[in-house]
């Protein structure tokens, strides 16, 4: 029982990271129908920006988040405004797959050039602190991302549900022509969506960096895990992303504990495939998503 609880707890901690890492990917897919293959690259870029700032100013990694948000928001919004939108206009959603893939290669290569291909970590002051109660152990470095993740995903939820921008995002995702006829500047909404999603990826990157070693190569892993989270939780709501992320985390630690650590990825992909075959719209998703 103790082992089970500990594993569950570890899974939740890890799941928070997965959820936050996938939230931007999910937002872009939900609003625009674009699978942003550069998502992992933006996440890793965020990690390097955080690393750079926290090292050069010798400040706590978490304090770099506002700066990371600004940089990544700008990068994401410009990327959408000047590249992705143009691509979708000219070649459709499929062409955007290629362009985002191409951009992921560029980001990957530039990061490897400037920071080297080796793995790095962002060191926080609480990296080795932990909370213990009733024989259960929680590392603080993993608890912080979970808390930040829940807070930010709730914020995203309320932004989408209550704010004017959120309403416009939902409108554009459901009926793009009608959104334009309502006088919504859809291009602006899309650029903001991409900016917000990239800022979330950047924040996730910094948090990932405080927990796990990362390198330019890590981008692929985070893009793929975002896929899995979206498939588990559905693309249309932040709540779904949170659920999908937590499920993936628990699945991961449970597999490692009760089957073998070797099979964590196997099980992850198997679940991805089975979920798609059985419930393509995700656990909380909408049936309309299946034909996207």
């Amino acid at each position, binding site marked *: 029982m103790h082992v089970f609880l500990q594993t569950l707890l570890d899974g939740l901690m890890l799941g928070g990271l997965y959820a936050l890492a996938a939230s931007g990917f999910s937002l872009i*897919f939900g609003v625009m*129908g674009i*699978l942003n293959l550069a998502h992992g690259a933006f996440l890793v870029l965020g990690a390097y920006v955080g690393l750079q700032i926290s090292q050069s100013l010798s400040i706590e990694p978490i304090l770099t988040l506002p700066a990371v948000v600004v940089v990544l928001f700008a990068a994401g919004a410009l990327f959408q405004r000047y*590249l992705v939108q*143009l*691509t979708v206009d*000219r*070649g459709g*959603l*499929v*062409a955007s*797959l*290629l*362009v985002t*893939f*191409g*951009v*992921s*290669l*560029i980001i*990957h*290569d*530039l990061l*490897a*050039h400037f920071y080297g291909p080796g793995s790095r970590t962002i060191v926080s002051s609480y990296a080795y602190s932990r909370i213990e109660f009733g024989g259960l152990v929680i590392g603080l470095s993993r608890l912080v991302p979970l808390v930040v993740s829940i807070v930010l995903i709730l914020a995203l939820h309320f932004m989408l549900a209550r704010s004017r921008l959120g309403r416009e995002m939902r409108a554009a995702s459901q009926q793009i022509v009608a959104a334009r006829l309502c006088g919504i500047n859809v291009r602006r909404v899309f650029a903001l969506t991409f900016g917000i999603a990239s800022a979330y990826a950047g924040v996730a990157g910094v948090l990932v960096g405080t927990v796990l070693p990362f390198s330019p190569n890590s981008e*692929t892993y985070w893009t*793929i895990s975002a*896929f*899995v989270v979206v*498939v588990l939780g559905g693309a249309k709501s932040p709540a779904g992303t949170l659920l999908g992320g937590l499920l993936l985390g628990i699945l991961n630690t449970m597999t490692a504990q009760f089957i073998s650590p*070797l*099979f964590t*990825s*196997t099980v992850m*992909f*198997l679940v*991805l*495939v089975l979920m*798609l*075959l059985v419930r*393509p719209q995700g656990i909380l998703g909408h049936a309309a*998503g*299946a*034909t*996207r």
Partner: protein
Amino acid sequence: MTGLDRLDLRSKITGNIGAWIAVGVIALVVMAAAPAILTPFQMRVGMSIFFSAGLAVAWGLLGGYAGYYSFGHTAFLGIGAFTGALLSNYLHAVSPLVVFGLSILAAVAVCGVLAALIAYPVLRLRHSYFAIVMLGIAYVAAEVINNFDWFQGSIGIVVPQVVPRGMRPEMFFYYALLAAAAICVVVTALLVSGRVGYALMTIREDEDTAKMLGIATERYKILAFVVSAMLTSLVGVVYAFSIGFITTGAVFRTDFSLNMIVCSLIGGIGTIVGPVFGAIILTVLTQVVLADALSFRLATTGALIVIIVLLAPSGVLGLVRGAAARIRQ
């Protein structure tokens, strides 16, 4: 390129079918005769081109014609490679060419059966969901081959040499991969020039309408999926023999899957010559032009993909056709 244009293109292709056969035969003869003057390096570049072209054409049967973009075709490449490699290690006593032939047959058969088994559930999904499920299947296949010792994926398998005595390996595999690519082109051309091609393109333009028109969409999709998988595994197993040593990481590469798509898009999707052009362009770019680039090679490739997609969304073939149309006017 709109659907109408594509259908228009089809009529052009079938309309000139005699000319296309002539071009194909001439190209084949030229490529078969080429090793007489090619250096071994150029033959290896040829091998890379045939490898990419075969894969891209095989992928295009499903992705280009039926509009089902698979992100995980490397699954069939990898399974084909491992089937061939494993089997060939049990066939020591038989002569090398027989080993080669049997391994190819086994790989193609295994992939055909596997594809047929998963085809129905997988093809119920559309668009991005189909793309992702295929990506997932590729990962599952790679993980299984890597994690169960019987497959030896994590340690790697040495594939026996099958090159006949006195023949240079690069020449042997130049011909082997040329043959594999030619089979991909011919099989795909035969399929799409008839009723199947029309059905697949109707599915691509509007699957629900196709269904209402009484087209047995499931049957055609499954046919395209299975044939596409078999052709992919054919290229994969020949590749395994040409490399001589395979590990999971060497054949289950996501970038192989992406290359198939990139070649198709660069050349012109929904055609047969398009992916072939794409393979030539991409291979020459990465292995000849950028061969000596020590840094920014990835970034350059990425930037080129972006530029081509933006400037030539219907591929190089589309550009050529557009230019030809302008000249005609």
